[in-house]
């Protein structure tokens, strides 16, 4: 579900992010209620949490360094669940860190280098439409070969697979913010002669912070969705299994142990709720100051955890004694690395085009040539693989793509059919929208893949079982995006327009046609765009499942790709590549031809200014 659209409209973001807040006029403004910092209970708690985290990382590290065990025997007893949850969380964290670094580097380069941008953004568009399983062979083969004797290669593969389900939408968001920095603030940065790193810290990172956090939350939801796929996988005749929540759920489903499935699911939901409370809420509350809008008021998101941390004497002490000196040290180094240009010396690249050979230009050329060479080699290998694909295979793949497309359509139509009435009802009632939004948010972040086995038990014996079940999984995975957006859209319908429809006795279907549908249209399109991409990506885990020790599949592109990866004794690379390409083409073309156009129409015609 690596496709998440960033709503530009600050209202949407606010409504979705500030979900848990309610209007409280007596609230003390943040920062004013600070008590003097004395060591207390909170500091003890913070200290214990840090110690626990460190010892866990040490434990995890010893597992990583242990000799290679490709397929760990998964223990289904409840006692191992905390440890498994910890392993999964650590993988997710590492994958997220990797995504974050990738985002900042890739987004920054794409936003500042015109020529690079022309290549980098389409590549990102394609990358985000490639399903997780298609990255699998390359990642595994490379990393297991690099670390043949320890678990580290396998663990890294899992982390990278998680990365591929998290990174792209974050990168898009960061790139977008970088391109739309407020002009006057850029001028302040220029006239204050901020160095590039200072500009990055002071201007670029803060102004993209809100979009970045919002997309990070989406990315984590995407990561959980593909948790099972990234902790246990088969490549030809080799199968790999890592200890973790995902493989626990898989093993439980595989042995038909319903009790264990429920236990694993509960643990996962608990983990997600705790993360929300201890990590995302505080982060969102902290990031509220990064809003570009100058108006204060409205609901400010609040978090008790953040308040506690802000009051903690320990945090303040560590900040003062450790982090500030480190920061100052780094700043001094960066200052030396990026000296200020002299304002009265003409920069070399001005005026006449420079014909001399400077190291910078040479470096630029080298990078360009290396990139081109790599691209050519990649193309060469691709072509060599693709000519092995027979015309018949292409035909069946295309047919499969049509099946999958119909399934995603079905999932979206069902999603729209129930979320639009429900979302509008919730959004138009201030009371319900306030109560239900946080609930919807948590429910939405529970990965449908974990719930899937339970539904499979019920559905698999019906005629056309998996075909319907896979639509259900797509629906479970993507309906929330539509619901979110519809609620936000209904909340944004102006009160005066609603009053006008009442005064002129416009009701029933006419009210829907004249007010509600046009009002929510931009939001609905945003939701649909996201849902469509998500459904395509989900096809890979929904059309081909292993369950009760046998494999079920239904015709579809996702199934074709998954089957190609699982072909024994060796994966069917040509089909895998062809299927992946076809899926990327389908998703990109659908986006360009349908969703982006609808989105532009929505912006042009149906935006309530």
């Amino acid at each position, binding site marked *: 579900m690596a496709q998440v659209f960033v709503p530009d409209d600050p209202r949407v973001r606010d409504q979705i992010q500030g979900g848990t807040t309610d209007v409280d006029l007596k609230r003390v403004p943040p*920062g004013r209620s600070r008590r003097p910092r004395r060591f207390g209970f909170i500091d003890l708690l913070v200290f214990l949490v840090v110690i626990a985290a460190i010892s866990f990382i040490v434990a995890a590290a010893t597992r990583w360094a242990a000799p290679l065990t490709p397929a760990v025997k998964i223990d289904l007893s409840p006692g191992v669940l905390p440890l498994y949850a910890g392993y999964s969380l650590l993988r997710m964290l590492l994958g997220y860190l990797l995504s974050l670094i990738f985002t900042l580097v890739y987004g920054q380069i794409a936003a500042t280098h015109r020529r690079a941008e022309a290549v980098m953004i389409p590549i990102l568009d394609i990358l985000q439409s490639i399903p997780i399983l298609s990255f699998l062979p390359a990642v595994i083969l490379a990393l297991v070969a690099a670390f043949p004797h320890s678990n580290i290669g396998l663990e890294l593969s899992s982390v990278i697979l998680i990365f591929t389900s998290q990174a792209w939408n974050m990168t898009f968001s960061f790139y977008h913010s970088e391109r739309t920095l*407020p002009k*006057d*603030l850029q*001028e*302040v940065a*220029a*006239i*204050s*002669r*901020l*160095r590039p790193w*200072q500009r990055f810290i*002071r*201007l670029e990172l*803060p102004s993209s*912070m809100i979009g970045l956090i919002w997309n990070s939350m989406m990315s984590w939801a995407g990561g959980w969705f593909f948790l099972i796929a990234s902790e246990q996988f088969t490549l030809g005749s080799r199968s790999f299994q890592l200890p973790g929540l995902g493989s626990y759920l898989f093993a439980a489903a595989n042995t038909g142990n319903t009790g264990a499935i429920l236990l694993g699911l509960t643990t996962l939901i608990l983990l997600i709720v705790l993360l929300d409370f201890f990590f995302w809420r505080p982060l969102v509350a902290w990031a509220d*100051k*990064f*809003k*570009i*809008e*100058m*108006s*204060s008021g409205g609901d400010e998101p609040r978090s008790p955890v953040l308040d506690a941390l802000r009051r903690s004497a320990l945090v303040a002490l560590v900040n003062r004694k450790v982090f500030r000196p480190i920061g*100052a040290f780094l700043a001094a180094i960066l200052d030396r690395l990026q000296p*200020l*240009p002299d*304002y*009265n*010396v*003409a*920069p070399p690249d*001005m005026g006449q085009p420079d014909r001399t050979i400077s190291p910078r230009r040479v470096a630029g050329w080298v990078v360009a040539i290396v990139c081109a060479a790599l691209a050519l080699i990649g193309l060469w290998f691709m072509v060599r693989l693709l000519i092995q694909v027979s015309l018949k295979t292409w035909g069946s793949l295309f047919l499969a793509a049509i099946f999958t497309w119909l399934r995603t359509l079905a999932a979206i139509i069902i999603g729209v059919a129930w979320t639009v009435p429900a979302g509008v009802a919730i959004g138009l009632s201030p009371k319900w929208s306030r109560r239900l939004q946080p609930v919807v948010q948590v429910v939405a972040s529970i990965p449908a893949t974990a719930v899937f086995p339970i539904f499979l038990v019920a559905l698999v014996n019906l005629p056309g079982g998996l075909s319907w079940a896979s639509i259900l999984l797509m629906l479970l995975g993507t309906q929330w995006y539509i619901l979110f957006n519809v609620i936000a859209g209904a909340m944004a319908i102006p009160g005066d327009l609603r009053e006008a429809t009442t005064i002129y006795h416009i009701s029933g279907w006419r009210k829907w046609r004249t007010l509600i549908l046009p009002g929510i249209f931009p939001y609905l399109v945003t939701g649909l765009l996201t849902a469509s991409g998500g459904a395509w990506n989900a096809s890979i885990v929904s059309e081909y499942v292993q369950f009760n020790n046998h494999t079920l599949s239904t015709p579809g592109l996702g199934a074709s790709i998954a089957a190609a990866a699982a072909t024994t004794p060796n994966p069917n690379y040509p089909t895998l590549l062809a299927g992946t390409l076809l899926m990327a083409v389908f998703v990109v073309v659908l986006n360009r031809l349908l969703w982006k156009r609808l989105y532009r*129409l929505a912006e*042009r*015609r149906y935006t309530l200014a």
Partner: protein
Amino acid sequence: MTQSNQHIVSDSDVAAEVLLEARVCSKSYDVEGKLPKGVSPHLVLDSIHLSIRSGEFVALLGPSGSGKSTLLRMLAGLIQPTTGQVYFKDQPQYGPNPHVAIVFQSFALFPWLTVLQNVEIGLESRPLTPTQRLKRALAAIDLIGLDGFEDAYPKELSGGMRQRVGFARALVVEPELLFMDEPFSALDVLTAANLRKELLALWREQTMPTRAILLVTHNIDEAVSMADRILVLGANPGRIRVELPGLPVAQRSFQGEAHTNLVDLIYRIMTSPQDDVEKLLTTQSPQAKTGQLVQPAQHPFQVLPHVAIGDVTGLIELVHARGGREDLYQIGRHLQLEIDDLLPLVEATDLLSLADVEEGDFVLTEEGKRFAEAGVLEEKQLFRAQVLEHVSLVRKIVQALQAAPRHVLPEEHFLQFLEAHFGKEEAQAQLDTAINWGRYAELYAFQEDRGMFRLEEEGEPAPT
């Protein structure tokens, strides 16, 4: 600074040091080199020549579109002139000048930084220890009257307090030149007056080490009551029309007669064509210099002022009710319109040949009088006739539509050739205005979502 600041430049040959000088600077935004041969790119600023001396308070006054903000950014080194060069103390200047600080109209504060951190931004790139930086920031905050607000975030402050942060951030770097880009225009009248007064006090008492100030504004009163020297810019392309000496400090108060006279004179200058200006100056202000006497290159195309027809009608009816002739300055006062809002209206009536400007007076033509007396339908007919006769863009659109099959054309058809003469944004703005006027005249319809022009069938255009 230790130099004796001479604030009243009664004689412009005073040997005060020239701090900043622009020598024949022009700026054009070309459409990424895609212009066809022979079409010159859209000029924003045309051969600007000006200098700022030590001890001076210079005001740049101009209507919107005269490129005054662009000029300020060029002088600050934020943008490089297309031709010509800016010199700081006789050294050519490339890139942002560290001796210049800017106060912005929008305040340009970082919402995520506190007042103190916002002020410190100006010092970040300087080799100072954190303690020194803090000390200087606190001193600037103190100077500008922001004590107690150090830890507040900008969104907690009122507009006036926000702009004080803007001033503190500019002054903390102890700039030799302080640039202000319409610093008071986003504030309400009382707050603006208060802040102006305090700034002038700081400047005159030399509590701040700044050696010269450049103020960009469209408010004539503001320029007259603050500046030692006033440069009046003209639009399309931006150029210096007139350079006027300011009033002696004692006469700058708002009530004085000299003040009123100078404001009136500038009003007349800004609303009159260049020829009349020279006449005005010789009779009323002999010390003034007209800017380089460069006649603007004849624009290949009429430039439509972006006004709504309803406002034009209102203005004409008002003047008609007052006898068909009225002093522009009085109109501005009466309607409480800034010159920036009034000028486009005057240009539009002039373009449509509904009124003329004679020595600062707004005089209705015969058509203008008939227009004022007409009922709604006749008004439209008169307007249609005037538009077709005098507005070349509207005429062009009508002719193209008459020639087109089914009398339908996409907007790109017109945008393309407008973009060759104007910048991208201005081309769109010009077309939007032409759409509005044409719609009012019922000459053609425009469907926004499809971007198509269609000739109105009934109501054949009146013969020209």
